[in-house]
């Protein structure tokens, strides 16, 4: 029997080797720099596409996270909003956003290459990587969609669908691209040497500032504060889904941070993945410890938010810091997130997801931490800015990082506030109270997210309702 298996395996190996042998006879051995460069470009392009796919998949993470933290009556609106935002974001960023961000222009905004019509030279902000423009666009649009998704986490369960759509056009088409151009597209902050490797400020702080502006104008959900103004907990309906969302986001960050090299050959993607994951783990621990110290229990949702805050924080620093520093950055991010979340709740800002704390404070801390922990070797390797304060780099880099936070955060907050204010004064931001109480699934989309369960409880099934059960339907669902 063993001999037979050995024969079969040998035969299979020979069959597998045959095409390669034939191909090797026909094709000359790879020689010369041109062919090697082609192979390297193909590998780089493949890496960028895979990374873009991972970042795009983060939308599923946001969907599950938001669904988990929402009440059952609103889950359909959450996923509808995510889908709509992906559609609007990708088209608008293709039309104008990519050109504003990376197109050649001035220190404030790109002015060339609309509708992806430019070549490598047009998108000067990304000329440091040789992958095709289409791959660059796919990777960058996934980032813009992440920033957009962050905006809506705080505005769940009460916002009009039209508001999402209108603001998405402005945010993906103008606000995000301007900040992106300042730091990544050759704008004035990049000339100062600001270090934001994968977007703690560009992506996360921008999203969080827009979210804060929107939430301040929107107001809290009905029932969030009692008559004395004390915050009430409105628990999400499905913690496993929320944690699944966190884990999908964590996996997506493998594309977010290491993918920001936008090349695989000769890049330290392994090191960046390492710092990213160490920080995330430390963030979970930081948030869990805080939860235990404050409430004497381990809050699962907060542990997930700790991971997200840490991932956000390490996003700026991932290519500049040592592994031990990543753990420190992640742990502190988890602690800061928890503290800020409690504060935000107390001052009357209703943030169901904790996005302002996780993405906003995580983004601020992460951007500052680069100015503290950036090592001279890694700064030299990446070619951005100066080493951090703890490595003798002085306060120069820390100052640039702080300037970037104030400028970008301030710009996004003010412009977003203006857009939301115009929307509030014209069409209004909130759904009617009746619709909010009934749930947005029905009022905005005409279907339940969980049809069977909610239809069963709507009709007479011992819940006290006097509505008759429609013919053909039982309390357990539709009769066969």
């Amino acid at each position, binding site marked *: 029997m063993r001999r037979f298996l050995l024969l079969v395996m040998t035969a299979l190996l020979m069959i597998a080797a045959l095409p390669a042998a034939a191909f090797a006879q026909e094709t000359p051995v790879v020689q010369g720099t041109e062919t090697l460069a082609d192979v390297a470009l193909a590998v780089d392009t493949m890496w960028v596409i895979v990374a873009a796919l991972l970042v795009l998949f983060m939308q599923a993470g946001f969907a599950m996270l938001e669904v988990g933290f929402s009440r059952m009556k609103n889950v359909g609106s959450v996923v509808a909003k995510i889908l709509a935002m992906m559609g609007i974001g990708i088209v608008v960023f293709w039309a104008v956003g990519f050109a504003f961000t990376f197109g050649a222009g001035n220190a404030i905004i790109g002015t060339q290459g609309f509708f992806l019509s430019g070549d490598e030279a047009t998108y000067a902000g990304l000329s440091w990587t040789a992958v095709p423009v289409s791959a660059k666009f796919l990777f960058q649009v996934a980032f813009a969609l992440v920033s957009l998704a962050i905006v809506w986490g705080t505005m769940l369960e*009460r916002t009009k669908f039209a508001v999402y759509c209108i603001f998405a056009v402005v945010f993906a088409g103008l606000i995000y691209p301007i900040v992106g151009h300042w730091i990544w597209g050759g704008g004035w902050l990049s000339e100062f040497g600001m270090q934001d490797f994968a977007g703690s400020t560009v992506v996360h702080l921008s999203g969080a500032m827009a979210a804060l502006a929107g939430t301040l*104008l929107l*107001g*809290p959900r*009905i*029932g*969030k*504060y*009692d*008559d004395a*103004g004390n915050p*009430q907990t409105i628990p999400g309906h499905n913690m496993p889904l929320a944690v699944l969302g966190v884990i999908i986001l964590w996996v997506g960050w493998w594309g977010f941070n290491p993918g920001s090299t936008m090349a695989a050959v000769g890049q330290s993607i392994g090191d960046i993945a390492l710092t990213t994951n160490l920080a995330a783990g430390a963030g979970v621990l930081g948030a869990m410890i805080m939860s235990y110290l404050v409430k004497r229990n381990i809050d699962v949702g907060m542990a997930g938010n700790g991971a997200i805050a840490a991932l956000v924080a390490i996003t700026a620093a991932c290519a500049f810091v040592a592994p031990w520093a990543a753990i420190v950055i992640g742990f502190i991010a988890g602690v800061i997130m928890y503290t800020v979340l409690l504060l935000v709740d107390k001052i*009357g800002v209703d943030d169901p997801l904790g996005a302002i704390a996780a993405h906003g404070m995580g983004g601020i801390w992460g951007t500052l931490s680069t100015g503290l922990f950036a090592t001279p070797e890694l700064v030299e390797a990446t070619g951005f800015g100066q080493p951090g304060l703890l490595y003798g780099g002085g306060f120069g880099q820390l100052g640039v990082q702080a300037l970037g936070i104030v400028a970008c955060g301030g710009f996004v907050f003010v412009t977003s506030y203006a857009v939301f*204010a115009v929307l*509030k*004064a*014209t*069409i*209004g*931001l*909130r759904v*009617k*109270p*009746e619709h*909010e*109480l009934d749930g947005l699934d029905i009022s905005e989309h005409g279907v339940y997210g969980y049809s069977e369960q909610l239809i069963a409880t709507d009709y007479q099934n011992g819940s006290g309702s006097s509505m008759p059960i429609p013919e053909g339907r039982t309390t357990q669902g539709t009769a066969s």
Partner: protein
Amino acid sequence: MEQRLLAQGTGTNNTINVYPDRVEIRTGWDNENANSLGLKQIANVSIRGLVNCTLTIEVNDGRRLNVERMALPDARQVKAAIEAQKQKAGLYE
């Protein structure tokens, strides 16, 4: 007592519903606490602000009830609905 809802809006931590014969300002987890005012009790309704509007209802007994940080379209709709109902009932001179 349930009747057709004519207009409604949300302010900070409370909502306002206008029915043909009364106005309710509601608070609570599920909007369960209602402060009801008959149309006859309402002396005047005014709006302040453009973005974060304050809807003020002046009651005959001297109270002024504010619904704060409303959207302008909602505040206008509520004000118009109250005034239209009072007009219809002949409660304005």
